[in-house]
Structure formats: structure tokens, C-alpha cells
């Protein structure tokens, strides 16, 4: 019965995409589907953290942004002049910073506790910071001076964008390791507060460090991941044109739809692979430990399970999955646009997906991702249309303008209300955990 219900739910969501295709356009529908699939992967990452360990992170947007950065660094065109101008020196500066922090931790452990240690370490860190800036700053200036209109960054490696996906996961995992080390094992709110901060910093770095990925000047024209072709190439490909002609479709529309279908297939495969992996993991001895900890942290700790270590593991794995999705997103969009990394879009929206879908259940997370993903993006065209119909009787004027403006803000309000209603009346979500 429950299985039947779940199939119905997924069929209902599929219907939404089909209706969008029929009444708006298939391009739009597939576009939303691809973004929704990526959201579903992010939702799986969050669900790993929340459903398996009860960890509440408000820094999902940070992992997404790191995934995006990975794509920029791995796949964007190399800028040899920019790299030569200061690339190695920037790496030196970062290495110096890592070493300095490493030495600080080592000193902290070795020195005797007390005010002297605190003072000495603080002084050491201040001096180290200025040395770091002295190495970094000239290099950054040199890199950014190189052809600022088109480049001004250190450039990428020029590898295939597909390769950037695991790199994105790794970068998000590394950030999660640092934050988890500090904030886990304390009050659970602290993780929420700390992740809020680190995500904000990551996004600010992406916005402001032009040498890294051109900041708000955006990095465009990133190459497609293997095996996705460019639409313009398809449109001159004789085999493709023959096939299209055989069906009797317009080659331009067909090429865009073909590309989107290809993305949808790739994303779908990754999604299924992740779910399969998650289910396998949950039924392994590791999964049993994890569930034991979740169900009763105190007794699990008493039985000698290292709760903090498991939580750290889960936090890292979940963040890595989100980072992977972030990399996939950037490599599909073909550009890195730091201003688009908004916490509302990439942190809280994903949370709504997880909670609505059914926390602790991967299929629930996917359903939530697809459903809320569709809603969120569909409101973009449905909202103004509905407002236009509602206000069609009004004379043109400030009131009408104001009402039509508010349509755009309705989205936030609706998301909030949906989240509150689900938490209150169906806290287990659409597909409850078994």
C-alpha cells in the first residue's frame, strides 16, 4: 500500500513536468527537470546529514559554491600569462598559511597552558598573517593586472568538466572536515551557526577574489562535460540532422532538447548511483552503527561507539554529495556566477525539499527535490501570470505595479509557510522513513 502510494506520488510529480512541457515548452520543462535533479542530489546530501545523524547545517550554499569553484579551476581555459604573473607565488602564500596554522596547532599542543601561551600564539599568528599577506598581495595584483577585461585570473587546467565533479566533492569534503572538527560534539545549534558563517565566507571569497575565478566579473564559456556536445555543433552534424529530419522536427529545438535530455540522463544516473550507494551503506555494519547512534546517542556512546567521529564522517560525506551537485550545476550552466549563490536558494530551499520529501528517506529527498524544485522554478512563470490575471481588472498604476512586484516575493513566503506546515502537520514528510 505504501509502495503504491509512493509510486503515485512520483507519477504525480512526473505529471507536473509533462504538463509544463505540453503547456509551456519542453525546453523549459527539461530545464526545470535538470535543475530539480541537481536539487534532488543536494537534498540527498543534506538528507545524509539530517536523516542519518540529525545534523542541521545552514551552510549548504557553501558546498555548492565550492563545487562550482572546482569546475572553474579544473575545466576553464588556462591563462598562461596570468598564471606566470603570480600563480606559483599565490600557491606559495597559501602553502605558507597552511604551514603557519599547522605550526600554531603544534605549538598549542606543545606549550604549557596559560596566558603566556595565548599571548605568544596570538602574536605569532598576527605576524604570520602579515607575512602571508606580503607574499600574497603582490602576486594577486600581478595576476589581476593581466588582461582584466577578459582574464585577470590564474586560469584553470583546461581538463574535461566531468573531471571537476569529484574534485568539487573533495573540496566540499575538505571544508566540511574543518568545520566539523570544530563545531561537532558541542551543542547542536553551534553547527548551524558555524556553517552559516563558513558558507558566507566561501561565497564572499568567490565574489571578491578576482584572481581565483574572476569574482563578480563571472567566468563564462566553461567547456561542456563529456559527452555533451554543443547545440551549434549538433546543428551542423550530418548524422544528427538526418535523424531529426527523419522524425520531422526542427533541428534547433531538437538540438537543445537533445542536450538537455543528455544532461538529465547523466544526472539521473548519478542520482540513482548515490541512492544505491546510500541504501547499501545503511544496511552495512557501518549503517547499523550510524542508526544506533541516531536512535540513541547516549546509549550508543556508552556502548563504546565514537559518536563524534561518526558524525564527522557523515557530515563530510553529506557535504561532498552537495559539492558534487554544485560542480554538476556549474558544469551544466557553463559559467560561474558568484552572485547567484544565495543562501535562500541553495541552503534553505534544499532544506524545504528534505523536510517535505521525508527526512531520513532518500526517495523522499528525491521526491521533495523534484517537487519543490519544480514549484520553485515554475512559480517564476506561474506567479506573474496569475498576478497578471488577478490584477487585470485594475487600472495601470502604482498599486498594480506593487502587486505585480510582490508576486516575485511570494515565493519566499510560500516556501516558509510550506516548511512550517509540513513540520507541524506532517513532520515525517511525504514519504516517511520505514
Amino acid at each position, binding site marked *: 500500500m505504501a509502495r503504491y502510494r509512493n509510486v503515485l506520488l512520483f507519477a504525480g510529480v512526473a505529471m507536473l513536468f509533462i504538463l509544463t512541457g505540453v503547456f509551456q515548452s519542453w525546453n523549459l520543462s527539461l530545464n526545470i527537470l535538470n535543475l530539480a535533479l541537481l536539487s534532488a542530489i543536494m537534498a540527498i546530501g543534506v538528507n545524509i546529514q539530517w536523516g542519518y545523524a540529525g545534523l*542541521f547545517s*545552514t551552510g549548504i550554499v557553501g558546498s555548492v559554491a565550492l563545487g562550482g569553484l572546482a569546475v572553474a579551476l579544473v575545466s576553464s581555459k588556462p591563462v598562461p600569462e596570468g598564471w606566470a604573473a603570480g600563480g606559483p607565488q599565490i600557491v606559495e602564500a597559501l602553502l605558507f598559511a597552511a604551514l603557519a596554522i599547522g605550526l600554531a596547532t603544534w605549538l598549542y599542543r606543545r606549550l604549557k597552558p596559560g596566558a603566556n601561551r595565548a599571548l605568544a600564539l596570538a602574536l605569532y599568528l598576527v605576524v604570520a598573517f602579515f607575512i602571508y599577506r606580503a607574499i600574497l*598581495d603582490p602576486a594577486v595584483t600581478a595576476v589581476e593586472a593581466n588582461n582584466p577585461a577578459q582574464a585577470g585570473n590564474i586560469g584553470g587546467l583546461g581538463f574535461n568538466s566531468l573531471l571537476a565533479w569529484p574534485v568539487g566533492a573533495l573540496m566540499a569534503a575538505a571544508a566540511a572536515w574543518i568545520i566539523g572538527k570544530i563545531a561537532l560534539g558541542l*551543542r547542536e545549534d553551534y553547527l548551524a551557526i558555524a556553517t552559516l558563517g563558513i558558507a558566507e565566507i566561501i561565497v564572499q571569497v568567490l565574489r*571578491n577574489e578576482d584572481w581565483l575565478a574572476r569574482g563578480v566579473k563571472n567566468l563564462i564559456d566553461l567547456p561542456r562535460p563529456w559527452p555533451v556536445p554543443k547545440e551549434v555543433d549538433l546543428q551542423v552534424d550530418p548524422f544528427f540532422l538526418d535523424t531529426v529530419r527523419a522524425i520531422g522536427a526542427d533541428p534547433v529545438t531538437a538540438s537543445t532538447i537533445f542536450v538537455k535530455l543528455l544532461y538529465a540522463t547523466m544526472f539521473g544516473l548519478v542520482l540513482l548511483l548515490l541512492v544505491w550507494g546510500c541504501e547499501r551503506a545503511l544496511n552495512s555494519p557501518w549503517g547499523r552503527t550510524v542508526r544506533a547512534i541516531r536512535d540513541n546517542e547516549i546509549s550508543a556512546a556508552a556502548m563504546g561507539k565514537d559518536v563524534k567521529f561518526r558524525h564527522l564522517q557523515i557530515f563530510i560525506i553529506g557535504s561532498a554529495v552537495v559539492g558534487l551537485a554544485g560542480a554538476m550545476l556549474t558544469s551544466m550552466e557553463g559559467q560561474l556566477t558568484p552572485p547567484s549563490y544565495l543562501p535562500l536558494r541553495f541552503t534553505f530551499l534544499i532544506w524545504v525539499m528534505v523536510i517535505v520529501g521525508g527526512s531520513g528517506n532518500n526517495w523522499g529527498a528525491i521526491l521533495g527535490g523534484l517537487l519543490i524544485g519544480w514549484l520553485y522554478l515554475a512559480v517564476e512563470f506561474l506567479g506573474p501570470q496569475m498576478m497578471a490575471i488577478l490584477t487585470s481588472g485594475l487600472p495601470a498604476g502604482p498599486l498594480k505595479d506593487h502587486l505585480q512586484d*510582490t508576486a516575485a*516575493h511570494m515565493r*519566499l513566503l510560500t516556501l*516558509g509557510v510550506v516548511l512550517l506546515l509540513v513540520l507541524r502537520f506532517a513532520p515525517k514528510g511525504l514519504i516517511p522513513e520505514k
Partner: protein
Amino acid sequence: MDLLNALTAFLNFIVVPGLAYGSQLALGALGITLIFSVLRFSNFAHGDTMAFGTAFVILFTWWFQSLGITAGPLPTALLALPLGILVTIAMVLATDRVVYRYYRKVRAKAIIVVIVSTGVMFVMNGLVRMIIGTSERNFSDGARMMLNPQDFKAWTGLAEPLAVKTTQAISVVAAVLCCAFLFWFLQKTRTGKSMRAYSDNEDLALLSGINPERVVTITWILAGALACIAGTLYGLDKSYRGIVYFSLLMPMFAAAVVGGLGSPLGAVIGSFIVAFSELIVTNAWRKIFGYLVPPDWLGDGLYQALSTDYKVAVSFSILILVLLFRPQGIFGGK
């Protein structure tokens, strides 16, 4: 070597703005810490509660201005503030009634309530956007400067100006008055003591006949009023945009955690630590150093440790240091 000018520049760029910003943060962080100590969750909606209250203060200010009512040299917003506070209190009490009360009744885990508060944050943020939009709203009027930089230069004959904006002075005065009232209330009144008792030991407070719903109501009233005042002062000082209040969450949380979540005194001190750290780290010290060392020693650096874009990194680092070395905060807390 010009100590007087250096000192003036230091006052002008660090001390005056730090006191004003610290005061605004303190009023916000006090609300967060009060809610934490009584309702036992970190309220992510607090920043947007501030934005919500301020939005109404702005609407009332415009209304007063259209009626020709002003406060002379002081901003009209001060007259509108009581009305804004009432709306904010009504809003937080309604939210408590509709949303939070249920989770108290079922004794939900703190983290669930934190997630709920993010839902409330969405709703409030949406409301603020619908009421007043996302663009910058200027609602400051009256005399802009309490201490005019030109006047200061004329009086003292120093090269360096010192400016005190009216809004900065009001922020500090308001924070002092609010803190004095709050500490008097918590320490001396029966109701205030019952709040502390409830926050200290919920079960024993119940055994002593303290009515939890009353304590919760008073907490929301205080937090709502403080949020509205803090938001209005921040908006007056830095000009209002409904969406920037979300980014105040990080410094306010950092301030509350530094002082020890649940400790009002700690929240105030934490706020000033955060405010001054932010200014010291993001200030370009070139000017001040210029008065202290011969000019040819300086080179061409700005002597700025971090650009202002990274001010969130300052409060974050403070938070991290506290979590690493003293998770209970300076003043205990929970």
C-alpha cells in the same frame, strides 16, 4: 609624530563607529540570548524580526512626515519607534502562538525548533519584501551630525576631523537605556527573577508555581521590542535594506556565543568585542599610522588586514575561537 591627530583619527574611525555598531549588535544579541535562555533555541528568525519591525517604523515615519510631525533635530523615526515596537511584539507573539507553542507542548528537540525558526525567517523575510521591497529606504531626518567635523576642526585646529552622527549618539544612548532597564528588570522585579529562574531550572520553576507561558510571553515581548529598536537604529545609521538583516545574524550569534549563550551581560560585552574586532581588522590604518611614523616609512600599503567584504570572517573567526577554546563562553551560559 602627531599623537593628537592620530588619536582623533582613531576615535573617528574606530571608537565612535565601534560604540554605535556595538550598541546596535548588543540590542539584537540580547534578544537572541533571551530567547535562547528561556525558549532554549537559537532563533534564526531574529535578523528578519529586526527587519520586520524596522519596516513598520519606516512606514510610521513616512506617515508622521506626511502629517508634518517631526522630532526637531532628532529623527522622526524615534516617534514612530513605539508604534513599530507594538507591531513587532504583536508579530512575535502571534508567531509564538501559531508556531512555537506547539513545539513547547510536545517538548520538541531544540534542533527541530531551530529549523522551525528558519521557516519563520522565510515568512518574515517574504513579508518584509512585500511590505517595503528590497531597495534601499532612507528614513533618517533631523540633524545629521551631532558633532560636525568642520566645527571640530575649527575648534581644535587639528587637521583630522571627528564626526559623531546623531544616529550614532542615539544608538549608544538607546543601548545604555535598554540595558539598564533590562538588567533592572531581570535582577530586581519578581517577573524578571521568575524569568531567570525558569531559564535556570525549568522543572524547579514549575514546582515553584512559575507560569511558563507567562515567562515565554514576556520573553517574546522583550526580544521583539529589542529587535525593533536594534533594527531601527541600524537602519537609521546605515540606511535600510530589508535583506541585509540576515547578514547581521552571524555577528549577533557570535556576540551571544562569545558572552555565553543565555547570559545577557555576556551578550552585551560580546557585541562590543565583535564590533571592535570587525572595525580594527577591516579598517585601513594607513591614515592613523601616517601620523605616528615618518611618511617615507609607510610605503604604499593601506594597512588593512581584511577588506570590508570579509567582515563576516571576523565574527566567524571569533565564534570559532570561542567554540575551540571556551564553548561555554566568557560568562558561562549554557
